[in-house]
C-alpha cells in the first residue's frame, strides 16, 4: 500500500461500517425504549435492566455486523475516506440526537 491508499483493509472497513450502524441503532433504541414502555419492560426482562440489555445488544451487534460485513464485499465497495466520514457523521449525529431527545423528552 502506498501512503495515498484510499481504501481500508477488509476487516477494518467491515468493523468501521459495523460501528457506524451500531452507533445509530443505539440512538434509535434509546429513544424508542423511552417512547415505548412495553419495549423498555421487555429489555429490562432480558438482562434485569433496560440499560444493561441495551449495552449488551450494541456490543453484540457491533461484533456480529463486523463479522458479517467481513464475509461480504459490501464494505469493500465503500472508499476509506467515505467510511471515515460515515463513522464520524454517525457519531456526531447520534450525540446531537441523544442530547436533543433528552432536552425535548
Amino acid at each position: 500500500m502506498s501512503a495515498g491508499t484510499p481504501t481500508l483493509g477488509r476487516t477494518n472497513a467491515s468493523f468501521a461500517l459495523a460501528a457506524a450502524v451500531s452507533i445509530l441503532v443505539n440512538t434509535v433504541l434509546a429513544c424508542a425504549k423511552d417512547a415505548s414502555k412495553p419495549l423498555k419492560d421487555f429489555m429490562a426482562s432480558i438482562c434485569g435492566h433496560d440499560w444493561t440489555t441495551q449495552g449488551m445488544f450494541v456490543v453484540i451487534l457491533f461484533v456480529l455486523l463486523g463479522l458479517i460485513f467481513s464475509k461480504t464485499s459490501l464494505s469493500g465497495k465503500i472508499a476509506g475516506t467515505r467510511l471515515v466520514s460515515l463513522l464520524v457523521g454517525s457519531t456526531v449525529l447520534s450525540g446531537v440526537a441523544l442530547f436533543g431527545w433528552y432536552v425535548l423528552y
Partner: protein
Amino acid sequence: MNIASSDIVLLAHASFGVLGTLTALWVFVEALNANPENANRIRTAAVIAAVFMVMAWILGGDWYLHFYPADKALILKGPWPFAHNLVMETKEHLFFLTLTLSLYLPIAAREKLFASAAARRMVLCVAMLIVLSGLGMEGFGAIVSHGAKVALLSNAAKGANE
C-alpha cells in the same frame, strides 16, 4: 475515614474513563507521526484504551444499577433535576458511542498506518472522537455529582432553618 464500596466503584469508574481518554489521546499523538517504529506501540495503546473503557463500562454499570437510584431520587427532589433528566440520561446512552468506538480502535490500529492514508485518518478520527466524548462523559459526571451535592445542601439548609 469511612470509604464505602460504592465510593470505590464510582471513583474507579471515573478513573478508568480518564485513563481510557488519555490512552486514546496517546494513540492520536502517535498516529500523527505514524511510522514503522511506533506501529506496535499504537496497536498496544489502542488495546489498552479499549480495556480501560470496558472497565469504565463495567464499573459504571455496577454503580448505576446498585447505587445510583438513591442519588437519582435525591437529585430529582433537589434544585437541579436536569442533572438526572437531561445530563445522566444523555450520559448513560452516549457512553455506548464511546464504548463502540473504543472497541473498534484496536481493529483500526491493526493496519499499517504509516502506509495507508485512509487507515491513519480513520485512527486519528476515532481516537479524537473517543477523547472528546470521554471528556464530555467526565463533564457530565461532574454535573450529576453536583446535582446530588446541591440537593444535599438544599436539604441541609432547610434543616438548619427549621
